[in-house]
């Protein structure tokens, strides 16, 4: 156990996390140079393109230190978005230390701080690493000052590197060995392993990623998942050298995987504890929380023939994403589809993009909603996450919506703008603290419905990227609600309906009409868009018809050029949903929620 180090790299976006991981992997020779690819841990296209990590990854780096001893350094790469905060916290719970990476030119940023707090919560050893020191704009002195004043860390502990140029990599590896404590635990004690992720393998079923805190596990053992008491026979254990590498056993301190015939990733829960059936640990590892979806939306195929394909794809997709839930749904305007639950809007965005990309589907998502609670006259309590199921207003005696506690960390100078934003979003009961000079911690209670939509983007924008934001669901609170329907040329488009706060209904109605006007391309005839509440038209806008579109001439018999142009348009049109005679683009359904502050 003395020869194991479990660590993670935490950083603000673009401070070079993936590049440093690449260098550590190369330096320790896990992958031959000729097989190397940048951002090697981000193996989904979508991760490489967006420069974000969605799934966590583990790689065990074999390292012979200067002291002559050989070590296994387990690098646990974590996702980096508020939608996935819980996954991050479980990954960090599996580590003893972190590299806190800071860009030498940009200095300490919002996520630097937010991540530092997360690491401190887990009592981890922290090694500040200043990256990109070879940039002409690098200002190491300034960063050192920030490490001292803003992070409150000892500047003597810092390291300097350029991950891109491969400078300072060995020093980092030495520091991991020397300064991150080896894991503790008793290999002879009853098994206690923390699940921090799970992936689906089409040949082997679910591959559980875990950190062993106590005990030992090997093929043939019968394990029990504490959360659902399910038992499974272990088929294989091992660790990760980019690919899985089978081992005889995993024991206290190890980070690795267990394959045990678990059919889907939904059968395991991140944060759950694995123990042995015949010799259970006395109590589960702390911190388990069942992650529940908070945002709901329906997915429909653009072409109704694709329904079966969509169903198959969702089945497959679900195998690998435990936090994604769905059930059958149907819409008068959009036909057969599925109602789905997501962790947040980024999660929704990613699911949509992966379905389109990996399963080649063209889909429409309805306007996302949170889950509301209604008490009806007959005493029934009804949870509604789909505006189509909004109860008869006459039967409602109480309507409630979920509230969250939003914790925001930001430089003091943005306080005014953020407070205004929070009030805009119906935030209440604020508290303000100054954890360090110049830096404010602001806490508000805000309706979740206000937060899931464009709060995060607007928060990032008013704090110029320096603010960090995290939230917890707290409770349901009474609220005056109404159902806002949208009519397109007189026809109700149920997928555009939303449940809104009554006081905001009129402005939301106007906003929805305006957004739709921007998103729906002009067509051959006039399109009327109306916002309706309880039969009353509260907003209206018109998209005028275009009257001339035939321009490119077919001169000299060149028909091909024109045809290719139309083929392209036709393809674009296939990605729109025909409702009545109106083609509505995919983007319109999400756009209705966006406000026009930018």
């Amino acid at each position, binding site marked *: 156990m003395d020869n194991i180090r479990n660590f993670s790299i935490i950083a603000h976006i673009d401070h070079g996390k993936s590049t440093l991981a690449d260098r550590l992997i190369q330096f320790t020779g896990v992958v031959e140079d000729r097989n190397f690819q940048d951002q090697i841990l981000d193996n989904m296209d979508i991760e490489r393109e967006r420069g974000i990590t969605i799934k966590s990854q583990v790689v065990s780096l074999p390292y012979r230190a200067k002291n002559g001893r050989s070590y296994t350094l387990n690098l646990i790469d974590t996702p980096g978005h508020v939608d996935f905060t819980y996954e991050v916290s479980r990954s960090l719970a599996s580590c003893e230390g972190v590299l806190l990476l800071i860009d030498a030119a940009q200095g300490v940023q919002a996520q630097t701080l937010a991540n530092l707090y997360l690491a401190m919560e887990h009592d981890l050893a922290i090694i500040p690493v200043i990256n990109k020191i070879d940039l002409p704009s690098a200002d190491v002195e300034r960063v050192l000052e920030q490490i001292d004043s803003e992070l409150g860390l000892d500047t003597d502990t810092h390291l300097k590197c350029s991950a891109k140029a491969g400078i300072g990599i060995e020093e980092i590896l030495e520091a991991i060995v020397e300064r991150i404590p080896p894991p503790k635990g008793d290999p002879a004690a009853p098994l206690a392993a923390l699940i921090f992720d799970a992936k689906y393998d089409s040949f082997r079923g679910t591959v559980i990623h875990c950190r062993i805190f106590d005990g030992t596990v090997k093929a043939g053992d019968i394990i029990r998942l504490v959360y659902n008491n399910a038992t499974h026979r272990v088929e294989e254990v091992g660790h990760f050298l980019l690919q899985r590498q089978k081992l005889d056993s995993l024991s206290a301190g190890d980070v690795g995987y267990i394959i045990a015939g678990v059919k889907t990733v939904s059968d395991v829960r991140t944060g759950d504890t694995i123990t042995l059936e015949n010799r259970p640990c006395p109590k589960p590892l702390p911190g388990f929380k069942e992650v529940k979806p908070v945002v709901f939306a329906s997915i429909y195929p653009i072409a109704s023939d694709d329904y079966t394909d969509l169903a198959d794809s969702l089945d497959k997709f679900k195998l690998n994403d435990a936090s994604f839930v769905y059930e059958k749904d149907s819409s008068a305007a959009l036909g057969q589809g599925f109602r789905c639950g997501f962790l947040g809007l980024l999660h929704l965005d990613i699911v949509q993009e992966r379905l389109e990309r990996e399963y080649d589907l063209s889909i429409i998502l309805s306007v996302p909603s949170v889950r509301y609670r209604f008490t009806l006259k007959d005493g029934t309590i009804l949870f509604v996450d789909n505006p189509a199921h909004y109860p008869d207003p006459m039967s409602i005696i109480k309507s409630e919506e979920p509230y969250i506690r939003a914790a925001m960390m930001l430089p003091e100078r943005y306080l005014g703008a953020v407070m205004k934003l929070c009030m805009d979003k119906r935030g209440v009961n604020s508290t303000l603290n100054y954890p360090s000079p110049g830096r404010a911690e602001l806490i508000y209670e805000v309706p979740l419905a206000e937060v899931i939509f464009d709060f995060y983007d607007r928060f990032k924008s008013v704090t110029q990227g320096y603010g960090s934001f995290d939230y917890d669901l707290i409770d349901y609170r009474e609220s005056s609600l109404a159902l806002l329907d949208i009519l397109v040329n007189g026809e109700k488009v149920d997928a555009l309906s939303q449940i809104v706060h009554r006081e905001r209904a009129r402005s939301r109605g106007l906003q929805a009409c305006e957004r739709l006007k921007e998103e729906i391309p002009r067509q*051959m005839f006039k399109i009327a868009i109306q916002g309706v509440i309880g039969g009353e038209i509260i907003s209206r806008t018109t998209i005028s018809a275009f*009257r*001339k579109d*035939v321009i*490119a*001439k077919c001169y000299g*018999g060149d*028909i091909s050029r024109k045809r290719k142009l*139309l*083929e392209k348009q036709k393809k674009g049109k296939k990605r729109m949903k025909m409702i009545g005679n109106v083609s509505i683009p995919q983007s319109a359904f999400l756009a209705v929620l966006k406000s026009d502050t930018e």
Partner: protein
Amino acid sequence: MNGCRPGHPTRRSQETDDLPGLYIHIPFCLRKCAYCGFYSITDHSLIPAFLSALRREMDHYQGWAASFDTLYIGGGTPSVLHEGDLEALIADIRIAFTITADAEITVEVNPADITDSLLASLRRSGVNRLSIGIQSFDDGSLALLGRRHTALQAISAVRRVRDAGFENIGLDLIYGLPCSCGHDAASCPQEQHDVATYPSWLSTLDKAIGMNPDHISCYQLTLEEGTPLAQKCSRGEVILPEESVLADFFCNTSKFLEENGYGHYEVSNFAHPGRESRHNRKYWNHIPYLGLGPAAHSFSGRERRWNRSSVEAYISDLESGREPVESRETLSDEQLGLEALFLGFRTRRGICLETFRSRYGQDLLAEKRETVERLTREGLVEIRDGFLRPTRAGMAVADSLALI
């Protein structure tokens, strides 16, 4: 080039009495117009080599079709060739191909090039239709377009053409020009420009019908990337009219010309009854045509192909015995169907529902009933005598109609 001759017409056209058409592209101009994106060069030293290459190409495609009932010599500016060269070229065309006795033979001419001797030479060659690139009768607009003739020259050119005995003449005009007030976007609001360009166009139209041509083409100016005019626009030095104004131009032009006896038979084309361009109609009606010369397009009923556009490449290909083809494509039924729709909706005649059904297996009325009904109510299409026809307003949105 031996035996293999790909791309011969494989199918007779929908109007079985229509023979294929022959197009010859002359890629030379005295100078480039400010708006023109078509391929042409101003270096005339290549003319002799081009003409001999063209003859090789003609030889290669001998037998492509039994006969042609239209010949169209376009450009570029065919009238920049010496009249002797043009006369010899037409004679050689007649040697290589069978041009029927009643064929429509058109040559594009620039008003600045028209001389009595050129006209006499064209008459001798059997040319029976001239397409005259007038563009505008407003000197300000002509200057903006970079044309090398004036309004006065244009008027006198048309008179000479008539005097020379040409009974079938067409005038080409351009509308939707930037306002020629000379003010930029900053100093002159859009509406003012829009209002200002309208009288100039009306006056051009008025002058045009005053000359009683048989055919009038009214093309909407399109900005072609990289042309001097497009650059001026992107710098904000000149301002193009808005879409709604262009739609008004389109509809008012159509009304005006129809009131004066010109049928609006295609988006950009108007003619006295019986004077519709037989050659251009082949493009819209999926009738095969053979195009020779750089950048020329050919269609054989299933295959489209087009030539290298560089004159040098065209010449060197032919000199070394290669077909000067840049690219070719074989159309699927679906592609042919889409073409039939967008080409059909460009013409007032519209789409023959029965022909469309038998050829592309789609019953438009049954499958698109709701949309067609809606479009009928909106006044964009009508169904008459088995044809789905665009109305005047419908022709203006022909591209969208094609995507119903």
